[in-house]
Structure formats: C-alpha cells, structure tokens
C-alpha cells in the first residue's frame, strides 16, 4: 500500500508542476459553458470568448486545408476566428498582441504527412494571453492527430497519388483523382453524419423548444425553471472528466518511453501496484476538480448541497472506470501518438453522442436513445438523477459492485500487458 501511495504522490507532484495543463481539462468545458450561457442565455449578443488564430499556410495542400477546414466546422465555429495571413505580417501582429496565436504550416507539411515523415507545425502564441493560446494549442494537436488518422484510413489512395505526382512529373492522372475524390466523398459523408449531426438540431430547437415533440418536450415542460447553464452543466462536467481521463491515461506512455516504468519493474513491486498508484492519483485529481466544479455549480445553478456528495462520488467513480479503460487502451497502443489517436477516437464520439456537447434534452429522439446507452451517457443520466434526488440507490449500488469488478479486470489486463511489453520500446 505504501508503494501505491508513494506512486500516486509522485504523480500528483508531477501534475502540480504543470497547473496550466490541469486547467486545460476544465477550461474548454468551462468556456463552452460560458459560451452557451451567453449565446442561449439572456439574449445578450455581447461577449464571446474567441480564439483569434492567424494562419500562414505555406503549404496549401489537401492536408493543410483539411486541418483548417475543420476549424470552421461544428462547435469550433464559435470558438475560432481564423484569418489567413503571410508569416511576417502574422509575426508582427502577434508581437503587437493583435491575436491569440499564429499558426505556420510549413511548405511540405502535407507531403511529409502523407509519406509519414516527421513534420512540424509552428504555433507562435501571444504571451500576453494565457488561456486562449492554450486552447488553440490543444485543439490543433487533436486536429493534427485527426488528419494523421485520416491519412491512415485513406492511406492507399493518397500515397498512390503522391507517388504519381513525384515519380511521373506529369502529376496524378485524372482517373486517380476521380477515384480518390470518390473515396474521400464516401468517407466524409459517413463521418459527417455521425460527427456533427446535432449542430443543426441545436440551432433550430434551442430557439423553439416548445415545438419539440415527444419526450424532450415532456422534460422541458416538467422543469420549466431550468436555466441553460444548468442544462449544459452536467454534460460539460462529464466532458471535463473525459478530457481528464485521456490526459491522465496518456501519462502511461511517458512512463514507458521515459524508462521509469521499466525501472519500477526492477524493484520488488509488481506493475499492478504501479498502475494502481497511477489510478489513485487520477482519482484524487478528478475528485478535486469535480468537487470544485460542483461547488461552483451549487452556487451558480442552485444545486442541492445534500445531493452533491452522492453525485460527486458517482462522477469520480465514472472517471475511475474511464481511466482504467483508457489506460488499458494506451497499454496496447504501439506508440504514444497511436495512443492519443485511439483515445481521441473513443472519447470524442462519446462526448458528442453521450450528452456532453449537446444535452439529451435537445437531441433528436433517436440520438438520445443511442446517447443514453453510451457508457458516459448512461452514467450522466444517473448523475443527473442523483442531483435531482431521483436516484434509485439499490440499482446504483449494484452498478458500483459490477463495474468495480470490471475495473479490477481492466487493471489486471493493463498490468499483464505492461509486464510483457513495458520494457520493449
């Protein structure tokens, strides 16, 4: 037990050295909450916190346009204001404090990405701002992973085109472009329908909630006093938990590539204890952040203090399960990057469908049905029930026992996997 606690303490110390990263996990959901409250709230069109991003696209390739294009889609639209610019001009404006950050996409970015060579985006941030450039950095890193992943999916057609373009000087043939665009179109259509479907819904329904049919209307009318913030708050808290889970699980790779995991394995303690220590640290961090968020929620939205402890415990239990699952996934990933892509691929769809971006109350009913059966959506429903004082204690108790055993299995599987591969790079 002592070693587990020492490992957790060590992780907590390491986290405390980088408070900005801790803040990021809360900042994005927090800002979104602010944004939603402002947009849908009292009707004031006033202040929107926005990342003003200058972009010097020296590449102007498919990949760079894809990257920039995704900043103009879905929930990013409100968060980002992008402006194309030459690098020198951009640097001057950042110096002058005229924008949040400058993104420089180097000339060979797309080509290198396709060939899976190392490439680098340069992000110059405005030193006078702290949070907004941080958001730009976070979102871009996720998007770059996304583009990287897309390249993996489209791998063959894309690299065929690159080969033709570089070997034959004539450039890709009409035929290959045609076949390629068909592939992309199919993929995009598929991706679009599941990635950003609720956006349209959100726009139309939020303005006319009384016209909504079915269960949603029932809920809306049952609790007419609900504020927009209160509507979004639980989902965004869960978004924060998902972010935390991803960030915390990511640390397993740092321990792996930094050799510290191997070193721990030369001591007499088992890897299982190392993983338990990391889980414990995660639970402490999640408890602290969730507690702070709930206290803030209690003040802002008049949540019931008595039910807060129960909902806190449930939220942290959810986070614990999530972390155990993501750690297992990380332990199977072949590199840190693959790990991040894999966990992003899991948590982002879960966030969108599971009631974090868009509360169930304003989702179309078929999506709501799916959403409530996602793990986080299911847990969110219980969380809301606890807050509302409608929780069924025996059911929750059973779930805790059942899922607790699942977590133990996940933990043992992670340890087994690390024992076999923790040392090999």
């Amino acid at each position, binding site marked *: 037990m002592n070693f587990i606690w020492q*490992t957790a303490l*060590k992780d907590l*110390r*390491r986290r405390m050295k980088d408070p900005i990263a801790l803040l990021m996990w809360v900042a994005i959901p927090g800002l979104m909450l602010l944004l939603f409250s402002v947009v849908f709230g009292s009707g004031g069109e006033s202040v929107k916190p926005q990342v003003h991003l200058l972009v010097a696209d020296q590449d102007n390739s498919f990949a760079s346009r894809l990257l920039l294009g995704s900043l103009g889609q879905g929930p990013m639209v409100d968060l980002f204001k992008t402006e194309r610019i030459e690098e020198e001009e951009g640097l001057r404006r950042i110096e002058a404090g005229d924008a949040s950050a400058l993104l420089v996409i180097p000339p060979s970015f797309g080509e290198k990405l396709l060939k899976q060579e190392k490439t680098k985006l340069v992000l110059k941030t405005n030193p006078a701002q702290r949070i907004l450039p941080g958001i730009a950095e976070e979102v871009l890193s996720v998007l770059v992973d996304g583009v990287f992943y897309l390249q993996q999916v489209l791998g063959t057609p894309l690299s065929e085109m690159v080969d033709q373009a570089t070997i034959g000087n004539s450039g890709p043939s009409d035929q290959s472009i045609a076949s390629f665009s068909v592939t992309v179109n199919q993929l995009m259509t598929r991706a679009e329908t599941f990635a950003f479907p609720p956006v349209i819904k959100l726009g139309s329904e939020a303005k006319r909630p009384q016209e909504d049919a079915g269960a949603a209307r029932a809920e809306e009318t049952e609790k007419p006093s609900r504020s927009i913030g209160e509507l979004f708050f639980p989902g965004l808290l869960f978004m924060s938990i998902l972010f935390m889970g991803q960030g915390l699980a990511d640390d397993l790779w740092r321990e792996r590539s*930094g050799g510290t995991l*191997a070193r721990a394995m030369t001591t*007499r303690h088992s890897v299982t204890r190392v993983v338990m220590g990391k889980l414990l640290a995660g639970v402490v961090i999640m408890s602290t952040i969730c507690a702070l968020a709930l206290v803030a929620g209690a003040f802002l939205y008049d949540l019931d203090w008595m039910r807060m402890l129960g909902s806190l415990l449930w939220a942290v239990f959810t986070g614990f399960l999530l972390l155990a699952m993501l750690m297992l996934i990380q332990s199977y990933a072949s590199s840190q990057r693959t790990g991040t892509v894999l966990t992003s691929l899991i948590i982002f769809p879960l966030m969108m469908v599971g009631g974090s971006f868009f509360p169930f109350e304003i989702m179309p009913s078929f999506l709501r049905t799916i959403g409530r059966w996602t793990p986080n959506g299911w847990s969110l429903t219980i969380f809301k029930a606890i807050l509302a004082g409608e929780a069924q204690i025996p059911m929750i108790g059973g779930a805790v026992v059942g899922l607790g055993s699942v977590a133990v299995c996940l933990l043992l599987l992670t340890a087994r996997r690390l024992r076999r591969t923790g*040392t090999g790079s």
Partner: protein
Amino acid sequence: MIEVKGLRKEYKEIVAVDDISFTAERGSIFGLLGPNGAGKSTTIGCICGLLEPTAGQVRVMGHDILRESIQAKSQLGVVPQELAIYEDLSATENLNYWGAACGLRRKELKERVPEVLELTGLQDRAKEPVKHFSGGMKRRLNFACGVVHHPAVLLLDEPTVGVDPQSRVRLLDLVREQAVAGTCVLYTTHYMEEAEKLCDSLAIIDHGKIIAAGTLPELRALLGERDLLRMSGVFDKTAVPAALAELETLEIIQLEDNALTLALGSAPQMLNRVLQALSSSGAQVRETTMNQPNLESLFIKLTGKELRE
C-alpha cells in the same frame, strides 16, 4: 552474488545473448566489456528480470530471478543505460521516490538522499526540476537513483557515457566504494581503460558470446608476456606475413592496408630486424608506437576487429 548459467536471449531472428555463463562475487566488480550490440544490456535486462530469457538461469543472491523474483529483486539496484528519471521532478524528489520504491523509510531517506546528492555532486541543484539539468548531470542522477538504497547487488549499464572526466572519476570512485562496502557490482562498458582500471574480473563479450573471461592478469597472459608494436603506413597483405615469418616469438595481431599490429617478445631488441624485414617486403612505415598488451589488443586478437568502430 550473481550467477548466470547458460543464458540465451533471442529476438525473433537475432540471438542477442548466446549461452553466457559467469559468476560475480560479493565485494568485487565484475566487468562486461564489449562493443555496441554485443548483448550487454540484454544480459543486464535478463538479470534484473525485465527480459525473460529464452534459455538459461539467473540467480541473484541465491534467488532465481523468475521464480523468486521478489526476494531477488529486493537485493537489486539498477542503473539502466537509458535515463530513467522523472524530468519534471527535482533530484531530491526523484531520489525520494526511487528510494521509497526500494524500501527505504522516511527517516532513512532523510539521511541518505542528501548524502547521495553530495556524492554525485548534485547538492547545489537538488531542488531544480531535472529537465533543466545538463546531460551529464542527468546521468549522475540516474546513477544516484540506482544506489540510493545500498543494494547488495548493483547492475550498472554504461553509467559513465556522456559524463565529463572529473565527474567520471568521482563516479568510478563511488562504484569502487560500493564494492569495498561489500556490494556485488556488475559493470558493463565499451571503454577498455575503464574496465582495466575498475574491474576485478572481466568477461569480454562479442555477438552475444563470451570470448574471454578472467582477472586482468589472466587475460593479459592470454596475449603472452609480449610487447605490442603498432605501425601505420602502407602494407602488403601477402608480402608482409611472408617477410615476417622468419622472426621468432612474433605474432601478427592485425594487418590492414594501412595498419599493422604485432606482438613480440622484446620489442626494443627486435625493432631493427622487424623494420628491415618490412622494408624488404616493400612496406612503408610512417609511425611506430610500442605498448604493453592491453584489453584492446586482446580484443583485436580474439575478434580481428577494433573494440570501437
């Protein structure tokens, strides 16, 4: 004490370690000397239980590393070749964590950590995050983390690579002190000077096999009580052996187009005859040096190549 018997480790097609056996005693330093890729780190990995051997057995202080791993690992201190420290923590925090992981209690840590910091010359920077350290300082901390708990068996994988000469001397002194205090030290390196100076006994390893083993005098004796003559210039690979064949007690250790190394009974007396024979073979000698036999010449003799390539 470390006992390694018939150790073999394969990675798919590569045989990294091929039937290695040796015993390292308490209170002495056992050296594992070999070039890059010889299998030193793999051997260490098998001894500390990080790698599962394909065949063979490892015992640490009498405990089998796989079957009695807790007892065996409790005796170990490991300094891996690659850095294994937390860059975001300070040196003190690192030592506290690794010390605690190896069983030191809070009170023991309070005494021992400042001591180790001082020994490795890190006491002035103890509170800074390690990521601000220079490469050599990180290596010193990496070393410190392996010895903080006074292990009975210490495995050191090339701990002095990248450390400046003064710190290196300090580090080697520290290793010596550990051995004097009764620790069994296994030390891998590809610097033969280091191995010669430090180790009580040695195994020379190449391509996963031990090609020679023993104490330093024993290994020297393999070359005979002969001096070593190294020459650079232009040499003919067929004419030179023919011309030198008549000279007694002479052995060609290495012959390249531009280098020649000879072992011979008493070089000063024979130098004239050697040079005459060489010039008759059409060789041009530009530079000549004479040494006592050392591990490098032994390595060249045994493998036909230089240790550092």
